């Protein structure tokens, strides 16, 4: 595997453009989102990979019925991941940049929104258009939202000017937010995503047993199906405690046509203090079953129609612990700023793979008996927010 094998796409980052989420309206349909500006620095460090960069998000109402938002997001990647190390390639550095724009239009109890996003890295381009509609119902106790996103990606392979392929992605979303009691909120989300095109990594390989090889195995390129359809359903509850604190519970179920079956459970607790501080603690547990064409070690070359050894498609569990603190600033305002806050969030993530083996330091070990891979990651977010 060459150095280019470990691009941002190799990390899967291009498959998860974030900014339209930030631009998605999150208030009730009958109210435009708050005017707000955020400056965030993010840092991820784990598994030999460090990724950091800024994110700027600004949202402003105008003409009484519109709210516009813009987001600029950067991932600066420096990677010596297990894929890099075990392939003998050199660590590399790379950058992904994303621009997003959003516009909301409020009419009575209806909100219409449009989002555009463009993401670029050296071997992957992604463009998305997103449409959404929301309405408040039943005395504003219920908000129902429908959304659609169309994404067009271009996949390239550095060092191979003849290679060019595409992916078309379509998202269909339904969301319901329901006030159940004066202290209890319920949220429901359902999203179907269909992908069609070149879905595997153009650089990654699988390994298969090979008696002619000195290390007992050889490699061949991954080969994925050209279609994938997934259904994700999530349920959230938020409860207001009598002494002004909030409990959050969330569950998500996920299935797709690659037979990945995953579930996520998350709980958090938010506690404002009297001196302007707000504390948050969170725990999140994620587990998934592997894609049916995944294997850490295939029995022979071309052992199946489709082949994958991407650890993100393997069977694994991950757990995330968060502590966060937010401190209110400019509480009396300053010029055009109504108020502000400074936040620091720290997440500690643990990944334990059940069928992805660590191929470092495997001298003397028979292929397939190497230790299972696991790693920890630290994620830090520092951001300043201003309400305008």
């Amino acid at each position, binding site marked *: 595997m060459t150095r280019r094998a470990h691009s941002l796409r190799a990390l899967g980052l291009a498959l998860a453009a974030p900014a339209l*989420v930030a631009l998605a309206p*999150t208030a009730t349909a009958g109210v435009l989102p708050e005017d707000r500006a*955020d400056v965030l620095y993010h840092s991820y460090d784990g598994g030999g990979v460090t990724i950091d960069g800024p994110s700027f998000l600004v949202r402003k109402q105008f003409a009484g019925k519109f709210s516009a938002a813009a987001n600029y997001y950067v991932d600066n990647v420096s990677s010596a991941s297990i894929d890099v190390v075990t392939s003998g390639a050199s660590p590399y550095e790379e950058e992904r940049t994303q621009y997003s724009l959003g516009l909301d239009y409020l009419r009575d109890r209806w909100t219409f929104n449009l989002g555009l996003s463009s993401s670029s890295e050296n071997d992957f381009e992604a463009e998305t258009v997103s449409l959404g509609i929301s*309405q408040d119902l039943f005395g504003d106790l219920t908000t129902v939202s429908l959304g659609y996103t169309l994404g067009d*990606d271009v996949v390239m392979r550095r060092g191979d000017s003849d290679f060019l392929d595409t992916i078309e992605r379509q998202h269909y979303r339904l969301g319901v937010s329901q006030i159940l009691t004066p*202290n209890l909120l319920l949220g429901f989300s359902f999203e179907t995503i269909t992908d069609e095109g070149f879905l595997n990594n153009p650089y990654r390989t699988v390994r298969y047993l090979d008696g002619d090889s000195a290390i007992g195995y050889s490699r061949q390129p991954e080969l994925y199906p050209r279609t994938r359809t997934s259904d994700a359903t999530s349920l959230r509850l938020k409860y*207001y405690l009598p002494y*002004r604190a909030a409990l959050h519970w969330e569950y998500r179920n996920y299935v797709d046509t690659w037979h990945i079956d*995953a579930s996520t459970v998350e709980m958090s607790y938010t506690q404002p203090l009297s001196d302007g501080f707000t504390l948050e603690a969170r725990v999140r547990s994620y587990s998934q079953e592997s894609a049916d064409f995944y294997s850490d070690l295939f029995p022979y070359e071309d052992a199946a129609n489709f082949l994958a050894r991407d650890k*993100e498609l393997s069977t694994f569990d991950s757990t995330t612990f968060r502590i966060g603190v937010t401190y209110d600033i400019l509480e009396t305002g300053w010029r055009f700023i109504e108020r502000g806050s400074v936040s620091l969030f720290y997440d500690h993530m643990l990944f334990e793979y059940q069928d992805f083996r660590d191929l470092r330091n495997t001298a003397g070990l028979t292929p397939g008996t190497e230790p299972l891979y696991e790693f920890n990651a630290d994620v830090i977010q520092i951001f300043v927010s201003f309400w305008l």
Partner: protein
Amino acid sequence: MRVLRNCLLGAVLAFAVSGCAIEPWVKPYERDHIADPIMSFDRDPVSSSYIHHVYEAREGARGATGSAGGGCGCN
């Protein structure tokens, strides 16, 4: 897709009956706790979109990560 179809049908029905007069069982003056910022499903969008990005880049699952009524515009 059948689940999606049922969900969409439910949404259409909800929209269709939106004109009906249903008495809200939580009165507007009882919603001060619900309106507290700590009760938001997505208190800091710039932060939540980032952390969803972190998860999605390292997990096989995707979608339905947005706050209720919102959704994920991830490509």
